[in-house]
């Protein structure tokens, strides 16, 4: 497979401008002749649908939820970065670019990241004009805060609900186009296959989740904005419905999968409380601005937190990283929490937790001061755990949060299948091996509002697409494949529930391919995942029929794909013989336990090619060049 990244040359600050000029345009009168399918209605999908519809394209947008407003972008709490430098504290496009490349541990494309930093300015303007109620200063200007270890205040926010407000902005723009007849919205509709004709993406096969009807939709281009695959771990901060089905089935049609082993673990989540646990809840990273993280010095210390004297506490982040302290990046904070718990010093039931203590901050700012900053988070914590964080420290533990990996895309966001685009978290994106806080919202909206609407025109103007209709044998075939798989799941009638398989897969991957990985463990997982998959196809029990709302059936299809994808993730982790960002291979670490990159051998994007059922996937490499930000060992000491 040939990977053509189409990265323009020239000085980095001119590349996007020059590229936009070089892209072919579609005549306004001709735009209405083109049809585009957008799968997913989160920040990326909704913003892309609305923007393309405004340009005049005919858009069909699909989501599995009951309304596009439910997409999981809605749960993002902290904020969105933009290099506005409104705070006069030395921020610039170049600094946001630099921070993002470095934060990603030098595994992202410089050109893409620079473009993202440039566009960050337009995103804020667009969202303000849509009526997103960003936090304001008393003078009426936009407020900012610092976030995720950044040394400048560049994060815009709407209380602890920034994702919700940005998504509602994009959703409202989408509804405006629905009203105008330019977008057809199909909620409760799940994409189950991609239609590729003459090597080009020409449509999708969907299942109507209410009636079970299997249908095909044809168009001139297909856009996937279907989010990340974090739920492969079963327990994650993702929504229960988040899945990898659309991108995985596209992968099986020839779209290369980029860096699947890069999954981000968020350090501040509420720990697991029991077997029945269905998902994990994130507590905003902003809590680390005032909370101090510690564990007892003694192993197995079962005393309540307030009975452990100061000199028997280990504030391990402050001890190991005096200059960044509790504000080290997410990957570093997470790994250190795991390390102290592995030593037997974890707190709470099961010993998988560390304290996040606000006692000092309460002394300094008073209860009221803390309440003003974090009231909603403290309330949420108490609602879930029945413990009062004003009185005793919170218990936190890392959890799977975000997928940096995803479908490989070129500079135009097109996958290796012509006419198939991936945007937002669904692509392998601009975050390298580790995403910085408040950058996910920025990337989703950059792709949807400001990149895809330009680049898709270049494809449509030059692709010379033949007319196809639903009687085409490939379309018929795809429909019958989907129907067959659905029936097969319903006919097994084995002994185990879908959830029990999903939970077992998740536990296996968390143990062997989670915060720390090693060769032996990854090999164990690579053996066990296919066994589990075989058992699934023999012994899963899905009740009910296919021609009705059947949530277990929907879930079964998604878990079947996770059972295939999980194997690729482990393989990628095994083949990347270095540690970088969130990918920590225990064999490759510095003497003091930090990630040890191997730039000479692994400075590339791993783009995996599907080779057919039962055959080992093929690894293609896109080399990464760093002309502006020179790779260095990240140090937060």
């Amino acid at each position, binding site marked *: 497979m040939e990977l053509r990244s189409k990265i323009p040359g020239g000085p980095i600050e001119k590349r996007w401008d020059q590229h936009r000029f070089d892209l072919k345009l579609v005549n306004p009168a001709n735009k209405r002749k083109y049809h585009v399918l957008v799968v997913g209605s989160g920040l990326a999908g909704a913003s892309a649908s*609305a923007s393309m519809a*405004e340009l005049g394209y005919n858009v069909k947008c699909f989501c599995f*939820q*009951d*309304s596009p*407003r*439910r*997409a*999981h972008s*809605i*749960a993002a709490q902290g904020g969105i970065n933009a290099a506005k430098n*409104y705070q006069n504290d030395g921020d610039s496009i170049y600094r946001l670019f630099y921070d993002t490349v470095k934060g990603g541990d030098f595994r992202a494309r410089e050109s893409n990241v620079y473009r993202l930093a440039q566009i960050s300015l*337009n995103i*804020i*303007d*667009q*969202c*303000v*004009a*849509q*009526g997103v*109620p*960003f936090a*304001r200063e008393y003078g*009426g*200007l*936009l407020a900012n805060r610092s976030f995720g270890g950044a040394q400048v205040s560049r994060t815009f926010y*709407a*209380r602890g609900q920034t994702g*919700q407000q940005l998504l*509602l902005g994009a959703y*409202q*723009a989408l*509804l*405006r186009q*629905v*009203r105008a007849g330019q977008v057809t919205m199909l*909620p409760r509709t799940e994409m189950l296959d991609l239609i590729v004709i003459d090597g080009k993406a020409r449509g999708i096969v969907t299942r109507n989740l*209410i009636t079970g009807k299997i249908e095909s939709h044809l168009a001139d281009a297909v856009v996937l904005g279907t989010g990340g695959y974090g739920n492969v771990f079963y327990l994650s901060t993702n*929504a*229960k*419905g988040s899945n990898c089905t659309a991108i995985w089935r596209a992968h099986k049609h020839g779209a290369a999968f980029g860096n699947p082993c890069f999954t981000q673990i968020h350090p501040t989540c509420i720990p697991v409380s*029991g077997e*029945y646990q*269905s998902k994990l809840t994130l507590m905003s990273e902003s809590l680390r601005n005032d909370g101090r993280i510690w564990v007892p010095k003694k192993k197995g210390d079962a005393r309540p937190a307030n009975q452990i004297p100061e000199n028997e506490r280990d504030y391990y982040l402050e001890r190991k990283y005096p200059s960044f302290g509790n504000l080290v990046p997410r990957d570093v904070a997470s790994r250190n929490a795991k390390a102290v718990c592995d030593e037997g010093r974890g707190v709470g039931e099961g010993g998988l937790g560390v304290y996040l203590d606000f006692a000092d901050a309460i002394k300094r700012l008073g209860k009221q001061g803390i309440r003003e900053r974090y009231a909603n988070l403290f309330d*949420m914590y108490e*609602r*879930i755990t*029945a413990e009062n964080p004003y009185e005793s420290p919170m218990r936190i533990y890392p959890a799977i949060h975000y997928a940096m990996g995803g479908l490989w895309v070129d500079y135009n966001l097109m996958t290796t299948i012509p006419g198939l685009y991936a945007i937002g978290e669904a692509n392998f994106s601009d975050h390298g091996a580790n995403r910085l806080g408040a950058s996910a919202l920025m990337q989703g909206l950059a792709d949807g*509002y*400001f990149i895809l*609407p330009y680049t898709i025109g270049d494809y449509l103007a030059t692709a010379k697409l033949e007319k196809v209709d639903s009687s085409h044998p490939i379309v018929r075939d795809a429909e019958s494949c989907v129907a067959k798989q659905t029936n097969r799941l319903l006919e097994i009638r084995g002994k185990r*529930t879908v*959830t029990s398989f999903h939970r077992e897969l998740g536990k296996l991957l968390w143990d062997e391919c989670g915060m720390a990985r090693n060769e032996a463990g990854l090999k164990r997982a690579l053996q066990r995942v296919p066994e589990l998959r075989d058992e699934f196809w023999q012994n899963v*029990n899905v*009740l009910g029929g296919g021609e*009705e*709302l059947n*949530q*277990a059936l929907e879930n079964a299809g998604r878990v079947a794909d996770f059972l295939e994808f999980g194997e690729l993730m482990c393989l990628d982790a095994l083949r990347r013989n270095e540690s970088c960002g969130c990918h920590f291979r225990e064999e490759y670490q510095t003497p003091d336990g930090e990630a040890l990159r191997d730039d000479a051998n692994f400075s590339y994007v791993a783009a995996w090619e599907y080779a057919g059922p039962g055959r080992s996937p093929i690894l293609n490499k896109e080399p990464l060049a760093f002309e502006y930000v020179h790779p260095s060992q990240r140090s937060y000491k």
Partner: protein
Amino acid sequence: MKLTLHIWRQKSPNHVGRMVRYEHNNVNPHMSFLEMLDVLNEELIAKGEEPVAFDHDCREGICGTCGFMINGVAHGPQPATSVCQLHMRHFKDGAVLYIEPWRAKAFPVIKDLVVDRSAFDRILAAGGFISVSTGSAPDGNVVLVPKRKADLAMDAAACIGCGACVAACPNAAAALFTGAKISHLGLLPQGQPERYQRVMNMVAQVKVEMFGSCTNIGECEAVCPKEIRLEVIARMNRDYLFGSWTGRAEVVRAGE
């Protein structure tokens, strides 16, 4: 903990539904309400019975997908909490719980506890937006927004569109939901150009969707998981009156 559950089971919109009794002996007080139902469903599947269908997604109280009545109260007994964030420790061992879907003509039942809330999307599509195409926005700091206004707009914008307000209302009115969006956009300077047209169009759509009329009872505010205040309805009514007097010729009647 042990619970006796009476759950509404209805196979499809065309089937007649009924309450079915389940004894649930495997409840941990730390479970969320939805996790309690997950465990029940796993047991039902093991017995060869179809699991109870209910809508849910983020389970963090922000997506607005989940929601049903527990003993006649939308989202159950804990204030300002959606069912995904409601934990079983708030119930007594041995409690008897009646679990039913939202009841409203505008929200037809699809299956068990799942209802069709697409009417909400259509109300917002009728005008719940600011018309600004991508690329045509001025710099974010060109238009100043007083902090007080921004905070009030944010209070209203916090609505998650779950539908509890409609389910709790004896008239099944959508006034709190509609008023919240009208307040959010109407309070901001960016929302002014379309302010009165917006309210006329949205209210027209509410009528088409067969929601009831608001009689200021306040049940909606009492159950709202995001604590949206009744004042949003007052703002909607004020803007509607003003819009009716000043802009009648422009009223778009839904369906035309």
